[in-house]
């Protein structure tokens, strides 16, 4: 059908791009210690971008044989569509990261149920009233993009994720911990780490301890580093730069962070969840330096934003901002978003960093950090899961406390350490591979 749409659209418009997204995923889940459900979804959809009279129209459909409908809707919306700033992809070479894995394809329902059940079996001794949930998902995606400029590329991708969590309701005190593994390669090998991480957080969380309001040294676990990157990405997104709202807009070449901080956006690494040969508009994937040794190197940009900024597109044109958000399907327009955000590791292991903290806080999960205005550089949220550290030991869980950090200041002047161990994690917004980060001068407000 993709060729049909391309051929027909070529006759109606000056230039066109058609995408076909096919996807099958399977998930099994345990809930409250028991096997609960199995889910299979099969998606097949088409998106068209078409340029005429200097405007670029966009439409999509998941209806079979909706060729005429797609072209008709593109014609209707054309008059009000954005000005066409860029040209669609031409035929060119692109990298070929390894993003399929026969071990994922071989996982049948029975082995997924077994793996998920093993997580429950390994964790159900945590407490007599603990409720374990776990799940295993596999996902097979085929993406094909064709343009009237001669680009015709396709790739296949296998994704796998495994997650486990533990819930304890002790009167009015709720404890909820969880952890996950994700990749475009078999991640079952990390199973024991997954279990030990959940065990560790749960055991630490059984006791609540008070914390004093004020400035603290905070060790950010990888999931909390994801919240840090959520704030940073808003300022390094070419869209914010073009709109002149990014505080980093005029700072390329300047020292914006501590010299130990290096941040890349990289969709070329084998097996990472957001790796692929080209982005959703056919731009080849690449490793884009954002911050190197603390110096701002550049921004991420899709074809439209790159054209506006006069830079080369970085392979960051994606449908919606994250692949797990429910809108990140064929009906989402292409915009500039991160692929795999990567922070380079430091020298010391995270366990040793923790052991060296005299007085501090370990933050694992923040709540509400995406609600603020990220362009201010402020990361703020309720500490959903966090712990007090005294003399290198976790003494208990912090509750009813808020964290507030001005990252533009703290990442520049108050970086204490960055761990040598890194972790691939994923949130609804982005995929990352990052170390632990120990930052000073973070404000905690407690009840």
């Amino acid at each position, binding site marked *: 059908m993709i060729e049909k749409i391309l051929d027909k659209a070529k006759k109606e418009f000056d230039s066109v791009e058609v995408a076909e997204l096919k996807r099958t995923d399977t998930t099994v889940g345990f809930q409250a210690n028991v096997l609960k459900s199995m889910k299979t979804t099969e998606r097949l959809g088409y998106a068209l971008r078409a340029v005429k009279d200097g405007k670029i129209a*966009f439409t999509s459909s998941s209806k079979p044989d909706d060729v005429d409908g797609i072209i008709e809707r593109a014609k209707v*919306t054309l008059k*009000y569509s954005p000005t066409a700033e860029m040209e669609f992809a031409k035929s060119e070479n692109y990298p070929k990261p390894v993003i399929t894995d026969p071990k994922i394809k071989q996982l049948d329902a029975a082995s997924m149920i077994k793996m998920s059940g093993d997580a429950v079996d390994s964790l159900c001794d945590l407490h007599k009233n603990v409720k374990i949930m776990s799940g295993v998902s596999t996902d097979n995606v085929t993406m094909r993009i064709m343009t009237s400029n001669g680009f015709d590329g396709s790739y296949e991708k296998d994704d796998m994720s495994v997650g486990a969590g533990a819930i304890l*309701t002790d009167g009015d005190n709720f404890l909820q911990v969880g952890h996950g593994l994700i990749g475009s390669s078999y991640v079952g090998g990390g199973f024991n780490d997954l279990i030990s991480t959940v065990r560790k957080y749960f055991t630490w969380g059984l006791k609540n301890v008070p914390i004093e309001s004020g400035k603290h040294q905070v060790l950010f676990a990888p999931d909390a580093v994801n919240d840090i990157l959520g704030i940073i990405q808003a300022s390094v997104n070419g869209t914010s730069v073009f709109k002149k*709202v990014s505080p980093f807009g005029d700072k390329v070449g300047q020292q914006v962070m501590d010299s130990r901080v290096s941040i890349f956006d990289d969709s070329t690494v084998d097996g990472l969840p957001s790796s692929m040969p080209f982005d959703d508009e056919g731009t080849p994937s690449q490793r884009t330096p954002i911050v190197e040794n603390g110096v701002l190197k550049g921004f991420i940009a899709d074809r439209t934003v790159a054209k506006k900024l006069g830079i080369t597109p970085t392979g960051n044109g994606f449908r919606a901002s994250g692949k797990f958000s429910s809108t990140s399907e064929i009906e989402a327009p292409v915009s500039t978003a991160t692929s795999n955000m990567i922070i380079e590791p430091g020298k010391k292991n995270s366990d040793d960093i923790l052991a060296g903290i005299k007085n501090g806080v370990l933050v694992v999960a923040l709540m509400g950090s995406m609600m603020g205005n990220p362009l201010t550089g402020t990361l703020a949220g309720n500490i*959903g899961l966090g712990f007090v550290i005294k003399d290198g030991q976790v003494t208990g869980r912090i509750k009813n406390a808020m964290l507030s950090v001005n990252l533009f200041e703290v990442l520049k002047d108050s970086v204490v350490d960055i761990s040598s161990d890194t972790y691939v994690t994923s949130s609804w917004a982005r995929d990352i591979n990052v170390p632990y980060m120990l930052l000073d001068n973070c404000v905690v*407000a407690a009840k």
Partner: protein
Amino acid sequence: MKSQLLSLLKRDDCDYIEIRLEDTIHTQIKLSGKDIENVAENCAYGGNVRALYKGGWSFVSFDTLSDIEAKVDMAVAQAREIGNRISAKSQLAKVDPIVDTYKIEPITDVRDVPLTKKMDTLLNYNEIMMTASPDIKSTNVFYKDAWIKQIFANSEGTYIEQEKMDMGCNMYAIASKGGRTEYFGTSVGSSNDWSKILGFEKAVEEKAKIAAGLLTADKPKSGNYTVILNPKLAGTFIHEAFGHLSEGDNVYENPELAQVMSMGREFGRPLLNVYDTGLDLGVRGFLKYDDEGVPTEKTYLIREGKLVGRLHSRETAGKMGERPTGSARAINYKFPPIPRMRNTCIQVGNTDPEEMIADVKNGLLCVDVFGGQTNGEMFTFKSGMAWKIENGKKTEMLAGPLLQGNVFSTLKNIDMVGTDYEDPDAAGGCGKGGQMPLPTTHGSPSVRIHDVVVSGK
């Protein structure tokens, strides 16, 4: 279609099975400063089959409807694969089979409004905001409407054809000066009247001026305050603070939580009444039948401070021996229904909002909302802006702080509920279990709460 679907569902190899098909046309518009960022009309078409066998669920969703029989077979096979391993009893609360065709009668149908009119309206608001102050550097106008035709059939003989309309729009002005950026705006939404979006010229100008004003506003000092939430913020507050914990899927397989959340437990003072309703025609949270074909209703969650109800799917109600409430919802055919909110409200009270300020020595009046989140016990929400209250007077305008609370203490600290009930709608909606955004509404009057942790500077 009816006899075909119902005959497909006559199976003796599972305990329950249902089919849901959807055909949706939606329009999305995004304006950003001087640019039109996106205008699209999309078609989403597909369905799902959900089956239950010996307590095990399977859910199969698809875009291609041509081999629906195979999808039914697949769903049954998967449910049996799960059910045979757990061998539990399938428990669904009993409901009477319903055969109905529900057509909505829109005041202004989104399909009757030409794209030209939608664009002109939004471009005008955008222009008003852009010119409201020299400090307004950009805008964020997001509009989405949808017309949905849904068919639901299950193995108990229910067959419902249902139409739904949805429209929501957020209009925000972005002010920027000297490296500082602030934003403020307004929103609208409806499930039966496109023209609700008209008449916002004055409102968007005022909001844009507030955004510019916030550029020089201080942040409140972090600490504990008496806060007054305006209706818009109080609505999000109750959604996060109590709505999510009322969803039956948190409780039905957790006896310890069921004990904590036992009926009659005191959560607030007698002045606090909270309900969730699908019956408010016109708001985005309106719903005739939920995605299990159960008629919706008005469900009281808190009456005079005490827990009286929760939001159920047929399974959570069945397992807890409670009544299904028509709260099983899915954002679209790609997802299974789970217990969700509709229009969640704090019932109107009897305090004049002006009176709430009178005896506050050092507090905050928090206005409008940028979102909220909860983990069941603790919750957090972001206000759009705030006024400092000193000795009973509104004094300085402040940038909107982040607030947090704990469901077991914060609701009890509500000591005043206002007379100024509103149920404002917005674009977007609620997210849970990977399903976002679900059209929900929050209604509330102003409320006053003591001892709230505020994160500012």
